[in-house]
Structures are given as structure tokens and as C-alpha cells.
């Protein structure tokens, strides 16, 4: 096999738990009621365009981006707007959401619902970016940064490489893996659309080595298209982190505080790339996504194509219901995802997985004294010393000390807390430290 790319600093090897890798994507049934948050991205909440009693179709724009750092929100179902008010979200905090009562499934007429793959791109870069904006696309890897901003290159900057992030380094997650297997050509077309928008001919799809089927499919297809290459990365966490991936593919490290575009790279998730294809070439805005439902508390795990706004409890019901002994429900992967309180909260553009966990396998051990093993510093992909950060936080050191420890460079991957044999929640201390330095 050809060279396998990876990053040299830190990182850990996790149990894969990828039991759903062979499960094809299944269309989840429509919910009875869809609850669509108007803020599913970083930045300002979108401005609501509909009001109570309005009839909407699937794909209708219901909230318009408010400013540059914001994103459009579309209705994922057809039906009647029941209410627009604050609803308890997954974490228990309230967010403004549009509640829609589902009646049938009528799509906006301009959406191209044919299965044919469009292979022609006749749009200018400006038109493509405008379409991406109209599609309400955000980074689907978890950050939720609006994609049109990322694809608009700032003045006096030059981009020469587009990296499509097909790495799913977190345990359990298989949504991107399945997407690459089943929609391989669409992803390649999406990469070409992005290439065109950026004015380059150089896209790299990075896949980790534990996805042989996706690698095979995409490698075969990429030979038919100019400007799209496949690179295989080692399976290591957090290989899918933006900074780690750039280091692996280009050999360059991003200096602290810099964005990928500063060294000529743009990184996009495969889910985002697929959404770009659908929006730009099929006129279909982002209103559904692939969600992995898995975990040891899950009866029928699988990968589902879910309309955004479907309550999490519906998805759980779909996969066999909630067993009484499930202790934790996690949105996203077990390393960076968040445990939720409210199962009535909706799936959003950023939900890559719903994990149902139970039992001792995932119990955390009781924190004990630091034995100074230094493993946290060994595994930190940012080269930080979490033990020193913890010490500084515990001593209420001034934010200047924390800044000197480069706390701001922490990518919150959780390698330190995962590895600590004393079970010290190091990541929590790093997060507190980051809050501290942001205060001033």
C-alpha cells in the first residue's frame, strides 16, 4: 500500500466500535412534528421569515441568514407552522425554534429529485458561492461554521489545496463512511464544485485506513476526474482534527491563531461536500443528513437519513427504543460529543450520531491523585501540558500564566482526559482555562 499520512505529535488509538459500518443508509420516516432551531451554526441566529399558521413545503426557506456569519434555515418537512418560540434544546437550555406540524411530503418544485448524477458544472465561482449560501450549508463535521465564508477567499490570500475530510476518527461514527461508499461520485462532484469555487484544480480526499470499501470506491472513481486525489491516513485520534489533518497531508503546521487559509488550505467535511453537491447541482438545500445511531444500549443500530428537526426520541424509537438501563445519550462521538438531557430536542445540521451508552464499559473512574506520569503531555496533539494547565487553574493563576501555557491552542479533543490513569478530568480544566483567557 502507498504511503499512509498521519500527524506526528500526540494522538491516541481508540477502540473502534464501528459496528454500523456495514449498515446501508436507511431513510428515516417523517416525524409527526418537526422542531427546527433557527441557530444551527456558529454566529448570529437566522431571521425568521414565516409566522404561525403559514404553510411550508419541504425545502422552503424559513429563516434568512442575519449577517455574514450566519446561515439560512430551510423547512425539512411540509406542513403548517404551529408555533415559533423558545423550546428546550438538547442541553436543557432554551433556543428559539420553529415547530411545524407535518402534513404529507410536498417538496419545493425546483428541487431536482431524480437519481441521476449531474456531472456538468456551468456556474461561475460567484454563482456557486451564492448557491451554497442559499442552501444554508454549514460545516457538518461539528463546528458549524458557515461554508460560504470558508469558500470565499479573503483578499491577498491564495488557496492551492482543498482537503476533503473523510476521516471519522471517533469511535462508533460511520455516517461519513457510509456516505462515501454510497454517494462516492456525488462527493467527487462536490469536491469539483468546491474546486471551481476556489479557482483551483487540486482537491485531496483524506480517508482513514479502516474504511477499505470507501477507499476502493473513491480511488477508482477519482481516476476518472481531474483534480481530485485520494490520500489514505493512519487510523489515529484526532486525525480528523483540522490542524492534524493539514499536518498529515501537507506536512505543514498551522501557527497558533492562524486559519488554514493562511497557509493555502481549505478543509471541508465529506458531509458538507455532499451537501454542496446537492445544493449547487440539484437545487436541494440542506434539510436532511446522515446520522449514526449506535452504542451498547441500542437495539437496532444503523445509519439513518434523517430530516433536520426530527426529535431525537423519534430516532431512538426507530432504532428499537430506549432501554431502561441506558445511562447516557450522546450527540456526536464519545470523545467530543455532548451528553444530553432532553430527548425531545431535534436533530440539527451538526448531529452526526446519537449514541446510547450504558453500563460499566463507559463508566468513568473516580479521580485520584496525579501520579505525574506525563501521559497527558505525551498524547496532546497540540503539544500542550495539560497537567500544568490543571495546576494553574487549581491555583487560580492569572490569565497571563494560562496564556503562556498556550491554552488557546487546545482543540478540546479530550486525549488528555481519556488517557489520564488517575481519571483527572483534564479537559474540563483546559476548558475553564480557555474561559479564563477569553474573559480579558
Amino acid at each position: 500500500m502507498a504511503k499512509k499520512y498521519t500527524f506526528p505529535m500526540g494522538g491516541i488509538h481508540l477502540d473502534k466500535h464501528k459496528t454500523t459500518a456495514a449498515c446501508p443508509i436507511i431513510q428515516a420516516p417523517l416525524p409527526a412534528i418537526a422542531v427546527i432551531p433557527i441557530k444551527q451554526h456558529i454566529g448570529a441566529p437566522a431571521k425568521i421569515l414565516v409566522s404561525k399558521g403559514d404553510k411550508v413545503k419541504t425545502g422552503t426557506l424559513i429563516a434568512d441568514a442575519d449577517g455574514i456569519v450566519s446561515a439560512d434555515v430551510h423547512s425539512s418537512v411540509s406542513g403548517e407552522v404551529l408555533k415559533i418560540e423558545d423550546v428546550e434544546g438538547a442541553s436543557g437550555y432554551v433556543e428559539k425554534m420553529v415547530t411545524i406540524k407535518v402534513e404529507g411530503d410536498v417538496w419545493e418544485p425546483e428541487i431536482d429529485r431524480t437519481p441521476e448524477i449531474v456531472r456538468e458544472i456551468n456556474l461561475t465561482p460567484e454563482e456557486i458561492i451564492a448557491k451554497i449560501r442559499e442552501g444554508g450549508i454549514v460545516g457538518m463535521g461539528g463546528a458549524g461554521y458557515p461554508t460560504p465564508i470558508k469558500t470565499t477567499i479573503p483578499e491577498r490570500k491564495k488557496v492551492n489545496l482543498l482537503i476533503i475530510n473523510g476521516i471519522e476518527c471517533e469511535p462508533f461514527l460511520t455516517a461519513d463512511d457510509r456516505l462515501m461508499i454510497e454517494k462516492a461520485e456525488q462527493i467527487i462532484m462536490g469536491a469539483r464544485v468546491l474546486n471551481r469555487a476556489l479557482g483551483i484544480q487540486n482537491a485531496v480526499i483524506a480517508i482513514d485506513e479502516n474504511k477499505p470499501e470507501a477507499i476502493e470506491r473513491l480511488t477508482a472513481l477519482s481516476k476518472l476526474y481531474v483534480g481530485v486525489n485520494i490520500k489514505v491516513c493512519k487510523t489515529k485520534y484526532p486525525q480528523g482534527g483540522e490542524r492534524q489533518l493539514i499536518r498529515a497531508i501537507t506536512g505543514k503546521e498551522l501557527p497558533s491563531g492562524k486559519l488554514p487559509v493562511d497557509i493555502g488550505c481549505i478543509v471541508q467535511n465529506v458531509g458538507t461536500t455532499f451537501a454542496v453537491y446537492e445544493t449547487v447541482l440539484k437545487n436541494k438545500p440542506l434539510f436532511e443528513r446522515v446520522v449514526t445511531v449506535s452504542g451498547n444500549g441500542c437495539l437496532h443500530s444503523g445509519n439513518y437519513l434523517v430530516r433536520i428537526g426530527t426529535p431525537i426520541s423519534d430516532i431512538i424509537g426507530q432504532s428499537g427504543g430506549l432501554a431502561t438501563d441506558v445511562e447516557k445519550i450522546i450527540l456526536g462521538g464519545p470523545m467530543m460529543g455532548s451528553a444530553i438531557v432532553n430527548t425531545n430536542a431535534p436533530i440539527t445540521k451538526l448531529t452526526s450520531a446519537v449514541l446510547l451508552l450504558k453500563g460499566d464499559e463507559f463508566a468513568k473512574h473516580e479521580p485520584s491523585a496525579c501520579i505525574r506520569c506525563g501521559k497527558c503531555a505525551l498524547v496532546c496533539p497540540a503539544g500542550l501540558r495539560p497537567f500544568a494547565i490543571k495546576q494553574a487553574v487549581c491555583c487560580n493563576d492569572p490569565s497571563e500564566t494560562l496564556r503562556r501555557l498556550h491554552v488557546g491552542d487546545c482543540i478540546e479533543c479530550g486525549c488528555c482526559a481519556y488517557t489520564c490513569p488517575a481519571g483527572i478530568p483534564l479537559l474540563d480544566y483546559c476548558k475553564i482555562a480557555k474561559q479564563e483567557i477569553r474573559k480579558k
Partner: protein
Amino acid sequence: MDDLIITNMLVLGGTAFAAAVILYFVSKKFAIHADEKETQIAEILPQANCGACGKAGCADFAAICARADEKAFANLYCPVGGAAVMQKIARLKGFSTKDKPSTIAVLRCQGNCQNAPIKVAYDAVSTCRIAHRISSGQNGCPNGCLHLGDCVKVCKFGALRMDKKSGLPVINAAKCVSCGACVKVCPRGLFEIRPQSPDGMVYVACRNKQKGAVARKNCAAACIGCAKCTKLNDQIKIEDNLSYIPATVDVGEFGAKLQKICPTGAIVYKEKLRG
């Protein structure tokens, strides 16, 4: 033999003399000129170094006091020592002082186990800051107490303790010096430094801004924004479904009435607390 003794005496004596000369000049050069007034003020101050006055510590406060003119001095206040200490300092400086009402910290939450039953188990570090980040809390109220006691840890005067039964911090009125450390540390801003009138105090012990029904779902003692209290006194205002009773409301006249009229018991009326 004699030579040896004499040499020894000379050498040792010389060394001692040289050292004395060096020490003399060093002590002159590095002498710290302490302001007499500053030292006197510092002696009056409680020396808790809590920073409640907004200065770097008691020494800093003393220096600022020593330099201040009458106008600037009127804005200086040591919450720990209170009026008594400020009066002493003023007398030292020859200024006159006005009485400031005594203040105390109050907790604006009643989300204990009975009012707000626990719905989810918390399984992370025992810090309110982290708990506030990851979810709305064990009882579901996004504005209520998280029961993890960051305020107790930060209180330098031992005036706060976590009550095991209710899960809420309890303020010891005798020990609280209203330094404001708890106000700063609480991620949900549940503490308020309120002046005490001779008749006691009355305040809304809730910060929940959700609509009445939503707030009540999580906590029986939540303010539901029913506005009944505003009818008694027009200084009381409802904002975001939450009532706020300003300290200017006459406690003697309205305290008991307000407590009685509140349908959820969110208004707390306390008669004379301290001294």
C-alpha cells in the same frame, strides 16, 4: 604566637568593620520610606486581602486612602470592615463620613430538592462552571442553582456552606461581609449584594426568565411573572417574565404583604438579619 593573635584580631576586626560600612550604605540605599498614615490606616483595616474594595489588597487600599482627598475618600469603602472601619480612617484623616447601610449577600434561588426535583444525574467534575457549560442542570432550570458549591469554595470568610438537605448554599448573616466574591463566581449570577434596612429585606428569590408554565415545570418556587407584586408597589418591575424588587421598596410596609401575595412563594421576606 602573639603575632597570630594580633593578626587574627586585625583580620576579623577589619572584616567586621568593612561589613558594617557596606551594610550601612545598603540600608540607606534600599530603605523603604513608609508613609506613617498609610501604616496607621493599614493597621485599622481588617487585613483580609479579599479584594472586595476593588483594590489589589489591604495595603493597596491603605495607600489609596492615605493619598485621597475628601471627595475621593467618599467613594472608598471597605465592605469587610464596614462603616466602623471607614469612620476610624476618616477620623484619622480628619474627614467626616456618612453612614452607609449594612449590606449582605442573598441567594436568588429556591431550587431545593422539594421545589425542583432532580431529573438527571451529574457525572463530571464538581464545579458549577463546567456544569453550567454542559447542561441546564440537574433539575432542569437553566437559571437556577447548580448545587456544586463554587461559591462556598470562593468565600474567604466562611459565611457560606452547602446545606446537604436542600442542596443550596446557606448564607451566615453574622459572617457575611458582602465582599462580593460569590457574586463574581456564580456562573448564573444568583447572588446579589443587597442593603438591609432596619426592617429586614424582601427580594425575589428566582432568576428564571422562562414563561411561567415552563418555569413552573422545573421548580415549584419559580417566579412566573404574574405581576401580582407590581400592583402593590410600582417600583417593582417585570422584565422577561421575571420580577425584580429594588432595594428602595419599603420593607417595613410591603415586606410581609409581598411575601403573602406571591402565588409561588418566590418572594422572600426576611426580618432583621444582623445586629
